């Protein structure tokens, strides 16, 4: 058990926690945080595993850097969308959208969508 | 590229181009559209005539290029192809003329004629297809291009009929594709070849070949309206008359029958199919269809529905003819491809005339129609007698040739089928004729319209008269070398390896 492997296992654990949160939590912001947690876990696995095998390696560092940038971009986009969604609908969670199937499925008449 | 390669392509392109032009023409340009239609139709007829002459002289026309790995796109004009091509080209011209008159003042003509041209292009493709794959290509194209024609009126009834039609035909297409794929799986790309490909097959191919045959026939049988796959045909009657004429007489049912001809002759080979015991089953089904269709026709009170069931019955003559597996019987079946076409197209033209001019749809409204519309009624009468098989009309030639073929093949029961069917035909056509000619008009016509100085519009009157004339000539001059029978005998001599 090298420290690198420990990192990797910690990363895997983080991934698991993050995944759990991502699936269970419905509040969007917390879901986003869970995603970030998961992301960090993956980065840890990436760096930890690589160093466990082949010693210090610059490549994973570079990859993780890039990955963090991507994650930040994603988080930013998500925050923007969540915020706007909250403004428009007043909700912080995604519930099941109305099903738009033929009427025999349920008595509820689906309301007309506005003109595109 | 030589003219040999170009002729079939041109024949195909004339109607495709016409379709494209018509689709892009504005709805109001009726005259221009009619002109495009007629020019294309005449042009196509000329091209096909040219090819027929060439084929008669023994020339070969064809083109092929690879389409999908392992599969070629093949167009080839052989004598059999020209039989069907000639049929569709000539009837296209007449049906176009008829449709122009029929759809006068109705909406959506641009759409109608566009799809109409596409439909004929597919029929031409079916005729010229040089392998099963190309055949399938146009076969499906035909399905698609006829759907808008069937639902053309847009009424609920039409839409329902369209749905039935499309369900039947597309399922049939899928089954056919399955069969073609299987065949392709164990023998590769199969061009149509006289005598077929399985003359000396290994015994372990027998079982799969039999299975594939059944699948192929089931797929083709939908369009050929073999019982129990015929359900779409009577429902499709809601279509406008020119469409029914085309569906029933030329394009759709014939495509199925023609496909069966190709499969039996030029994929399996008559002898192989016979050796596998496949023809016997096919003959039994065809015979049943013949009787069943006629019997059902008896109880229809709607004129077009009666004609539809009559089609169900008549198309199976073609198939039954093949199963006789002898030169004469085969000729009888093949010649019925033309004869049934000309008779049925006449009947539908006439039914359309009655409906458009007098508003008559049901048989009991026909009383006294002969006096009001003598020309149409004469054509109808001739065609009906042809269907019964009365000499000297075209239908007699079919029945006679098939009967002789049946005796030659030792299948005497076929004669019984022919006789029963003729009796039933007489039973459902003669009362109609009796009403037309020998009953006094009882009530006012449901919806009469005066149309020019003839009994109806000249556009509507001439096509049935011409086809009626043709069906008389096809019978009278059957032994002449240019008659359908003459051509079919050429096919049998040249391409059916017996």
């Amino acid at each position, binding site marked *: 058990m090298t420290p690198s492997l420990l990192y990797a296992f910690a990363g895997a654990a983080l991934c698991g926690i993050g995944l759990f949160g991502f699936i269970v939590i419905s509040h969007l912001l917390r879901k986003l945080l869970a995603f970030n947690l998961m992301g960090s876990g993956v980065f840890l696995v990436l760096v930890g595993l690589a160093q466990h095998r082949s010693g210090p390696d610059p490549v994973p560092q570079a990859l993780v850097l890039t990955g963090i940038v991507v994650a930040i971009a994603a988080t930013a986009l998500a925050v923007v969308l969540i915020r706007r969604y909250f403004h428009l609908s007043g909700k912080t969670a995604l519930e099941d959208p109305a099903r738009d199937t033929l009427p025999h499925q349920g008595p509820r008449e689906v309301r007309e969508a506005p003109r595109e | 590229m030589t003219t040999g390669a170009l002729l079939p392509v041109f024949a195909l392109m004339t109607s495709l181009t016409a379709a494209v032009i018509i689709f892009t023409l504005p709805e109001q340009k009726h005259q221009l559209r009619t002109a495009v239609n007629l020019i294309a139709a005449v042009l196509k007829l000329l091209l096909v005539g040219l090819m027929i002459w060439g084929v008669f002289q023994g020339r070969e026309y064809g083109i092929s290029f690879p389409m999908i790995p392992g599969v070629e796109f093949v167009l080839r004009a052989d004598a059999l192809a020209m039989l069907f091509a000639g049929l569709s080209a000539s009837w296209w011209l007449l049906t176009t003329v008829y449709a122009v008159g029929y759809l006068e003042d109705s909406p959506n003509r641009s759409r109608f004629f566009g799809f109409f041209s596409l439909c004929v292009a597919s029929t031409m493709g079916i005729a010229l297809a040089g392998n099963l794959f190309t055949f399938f290509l146009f076969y499906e194209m035909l399905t698609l291009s006829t759907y808008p024609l069937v639902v053309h009126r847009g009424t609920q009834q039409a839409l329902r009929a369209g749905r039935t039609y499309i369900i039947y035909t597309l399922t049939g297409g899928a089954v056919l594709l399955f069969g073609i794929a299987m065949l392709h799986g164990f023998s590769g790309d199969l061009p149509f070849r006289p005598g077929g490909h399985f003359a000396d097959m290994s015994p372990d191919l027998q079982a799969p070949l039999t299975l594939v045959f059944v699948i192929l026939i089931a797929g083709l049988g939908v369009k050929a309206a073999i019982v129990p796959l015929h359900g779409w045909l009577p429902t499709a009657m809601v279509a406008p008359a020119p469409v029914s004429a085309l569906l029933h007489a030329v394009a759709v049912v014939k495509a199925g029958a023609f496909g069966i001809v190709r499969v039996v002759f030029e994929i399996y080979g008559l002898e192989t199919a016979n050796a596998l015991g496949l023809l016997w089953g096919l003959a039994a089904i065809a015979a049943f269809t013949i009787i069943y269709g006629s019997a059902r026709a008896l109880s229809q009170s709607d004129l077009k529905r009666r004609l539809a069931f009559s089609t169900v019955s008549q198309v199976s003559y073609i198939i039954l003819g093949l199963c006789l597996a002898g030169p004469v019987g085969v000729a009888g079946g093949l010649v019925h491809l033309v004869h049934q076409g000309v008779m049925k197209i006449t009947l539908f033209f006439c039914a359309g005339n009655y409906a458009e001019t007098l508003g008559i749809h049901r048989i009991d409204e026909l009383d006294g129609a002969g006096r009001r519309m003598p020309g149409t009624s004469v054509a109808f009468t001739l065609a009906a007698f042809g269907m019964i*098989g009365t000499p*000297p009309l075209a239908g007699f030639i079919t029945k*006679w040739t098939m*009967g*002789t073929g049946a*005796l*030659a093949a030792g299948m005497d029961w076929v004669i019984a089928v022919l006789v029963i069917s003729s009796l039933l035909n007489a039973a459902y056509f003669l009362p109609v004729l009796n009403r037309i*000619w*020998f009953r006094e008009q009882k009530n006012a016509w449901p919806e009469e319209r005066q149309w020019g100085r003839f009994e109806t519009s000249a556009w509507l009157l001439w096509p049935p008269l011409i086809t009626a004339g043709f069906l008389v000539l096809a019978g009278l*001059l059957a032994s002449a070398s240019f008659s359908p029978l003459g051509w079919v005998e050429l096919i049998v001599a040249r391409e059916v390896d017996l």
Partner: protein
Amino acid sequence: MIASPLMLMTVILPLASLFLAIRPQWQTIYRYSLPLLPLPAILAGLMAELHHWLELPWLLIGGLWGLDELRQTFLLLTSVLWATAGIFAVGYLETRKLRPFCLFWALTLTGNLGLIISVDLASFYSFFALMTFAAYGLVVHERTDEANRAGRVYLAMAVAGEMALLTGLLMAAHQAGSTLLTELPGAIAESDRSGMIIALLVSGFGVKAGLPFLHFWLPLAHPVAPTPASAVLSGAMIKAGLLGWLVTLPFGELSLPAWSNTLVVLGAIGALGGAALGLKQVRPKTVLAYSSISQMGLITLMVGAAMANMEQAATLFSVIALYALHHGLAKGCLFLSTAVELPTQRRFRWTLWLLIALPGFSLAGLPFTSGAAAKLAMKAELKLEQYDFAVAEYLPLIMTAGAVATMLLIWRFIWTLHQSARRGHNHPFKWLGWVAATVCSLVGFWFLPGARSEAGHSWFVLTPGELWSLCWPIVVATAIAAVGWFTRGRNGSDLG
């Protein structure tokens, strides 16, 4: 070389006349052209070379037309009868529904003439079918319920007959490997299914020929048709069935005693049963229709006999032709007379009655009439010693009974006609037609080739035996009729 154009014209002229039906204005022309339509056929019958074959290889499945002795007789009979009936029709027809009548007349005529000159099977069958179906238009011409019912029965039986024919001809032609009628008899004789083929052909043509049990349409259809049409139906078209038998069945190829028995029995049933039923009828045209069944029954006897004896077949043929000729002309004439209005002067009326009755008596075999010739020829041919099939011994008896029955029917006819005849004025063409028919039956007959061919026998020099054999049935029948008439008269039931 006049045969070919004449034969073509025989068919083409009536067909071409259809164009006259296009415009209503032309119907008068059409009416007057009716007697002219069979003219080429008459000329062909009189002038065309026999055994000259007109080949039409492009026609149907190969056409061949021509005349031989048998066909010549039938052609003359048919065309003469149609011509006289045509003349009669000019006077008979009303303007209403004139065009359809002329149309169907011409079509039926085409069929009737065409089938006679056809030597190949397809044209023969085509013309036969044309005649059958076009005659429907004549049968239902009046559009009464009765006519419609008759038409329905006629059509149903005709279609069934056509199908039997189609099957029989198909099988025969397949056996022969040829579509020439001349090849069929030989082929049928060799076929291992000859019984079936013969059965199909006998019944198929039998429908038209009024064979018993296939005759139901006949007493319904013949009377309801307009009178000129009845004349040709009963006089000419019924013979088409007979001709069919003669040209297809294997006469002279092998002897078929079983078939002889069947046909003779059927003929006897027709001859006697038809007469019996006819006696109960009240309308003159129905009586005549049954008389036709009866007469055809007698002819069927000869056909049956010809089946049995190979050597006799050829001579029997000429007798059958003679009989057909005689019966056709006489029956046509009788039918026409049902529509003749009686003149008002008593003297003319009696003359007329005589002229009406004469063809009838001729049917019964009155000496010095065509009937006598036919009957004597028939008797001479049906001599017992030539035949050895089972029922042959009854032939003379049947013939004699038939003669008596015929005469009785004629009396019945005269009586019913007398009941229904009206007095009045006749259209000149009606007169002309009727007179022409009567003249043809009584006089013209002797000059027609069919009668002339029996020239070896001088029909006008009769031995006492012959005279007796001809006369006594007439006398007996007349006596029975007289008794019947008096008994009825005493009961005062019908005579008004």
